[in-house]
């Protein structure tokens, strides 16, 4: 119910403040999502989508910072998000 999925904004289709929509790619699967809550998002940004609408942009600087902390703390290294293939 309250889970959400990260995806990459591929294309805006409507930038109306209330009806905003665009294509978002989730691990290779493409869905048209509502983007009224993230009007500042640009193509290439990652957004967190829940119940068909993007709730927020993903702050990749913060994500990479946590991954660096995990790498520093762990014996094994988690991959960098930047290294991941879509």
């Amino acid at each position, binding site marked *: *119910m*309250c*889970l*959400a*999925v*990260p995806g*990459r904004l591929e294309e805006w289709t409507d930038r109306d403040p*209330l*009806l905003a929509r665009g294509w978002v790619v*989730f*691990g290779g699967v493409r869905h048209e999502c*509502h983007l*009224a*809550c*993230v*009007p500042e998002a640009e193509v290439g940004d*990652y957004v*967190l989508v*829940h*119940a*068909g*609408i993007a*709730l*927020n*942009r*993903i*702050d*990749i600087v*913060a*994500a990479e910072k*946590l*991954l660096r902390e*995990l*790498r520093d*703390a*762990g*014996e*094994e*290294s*988690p*991959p*960098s*998000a930047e290294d*991941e293939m*879509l």
Partner: protein
Amino acid sequence: MKYLDEFRHPGATESLLESIRRRVTKRWTIMEVCGGQTHGLLRYGIDEALADAVELIHGPGCPVCVTGAEVIDRAIELASIPNVLVTTFGDMLRVPGSRESLASARAAGALVRMVYSPLDAVALAEKHPELEVVFFAVGFETTAPATALAVLQAKRRGIENFSLLVAHVRVQPAMEAILCAPENRVQAFLAAGHVCTVVGCESYEDLCRRYEVPIVVTGFEPTDLATGIAACVEQLETSRHEVENRYDRVVQAEGNLRARQFVEDVFEACDRTWRGLGAMPLGGLRLRESWRDYDAERRFTAGALPQVVSSCRCRSGEVLSGRIKPPECAAFGGECRPEHPLGAPMVSGEGACAAYFQYHRPELRCEPRAVEGNA
């Protein structure tokens, strides 16, 4: 999937769990608020890996589980009116009301359809002007922006055959009720990350200060959960109580102001009865008076439904408030199973009883439950 799989790394998770085990000087009790977190903790075996260091108790964080039987009765009543189509999320369909579920009502001829988003319900209304489409709106603050946006879009597009049966609930009043209860054992909270994506973590400062309880905002993947627990333990071990954001890749202090504005435009806080937990002051959302034309109850029904007394064999209220764990209920796994649940926590995909049934029954496991890579 990018920005998901990296936070399921087994080496990093195990390293965090080991650091937690080394850090604790006593066994702390931490409540995760969201059902999605409960499933993550059990799925990756974090609860068992930390069993000697931390007791993880499960909060009321499944809006499907806490939706009152009388509201489900109302949804069924609406779906039984000719030309009224009731739409809702899939996990709501099987939850029993006082007599039956929306799924069984559909089997008997009522118009009921599953949607992935309230905005899909608006599209259905536009496509089927011969129907009155009602969206049965459940969910925490995470889901409320989508519902609000559905109403705003319906108004903007002149779609008049769309309305809502609103059963949205608010997380903070439930957290406060748990802290106020005489039997409260919660020493720290893992706050629900996606609720906080909308409302922000600033909103927890007052609760944190008044009850002197650490509140750590966290995500749902195993390294996120382990990071959140580590932060809770660090605060508890150093006698601090702060709101700490360990999910800052999507949560900001103020939340998403635009999403909050959509909710503010359409809804206002109201008292609500939570299934299993009882009356919750300001524990729900309702349409503002200016949007009451979109209130399905006002449009199609009259009078309140009687309150439903829950089954005495089902102890879901105690499960939802962290007083017992699902296996402590005598009905768990026998009389109460996912295929014939007594209470909503066994029905919903995010319910604590369903999580225990799925992950604490070795004979049912399809894969090792130990901390691993991808789920």
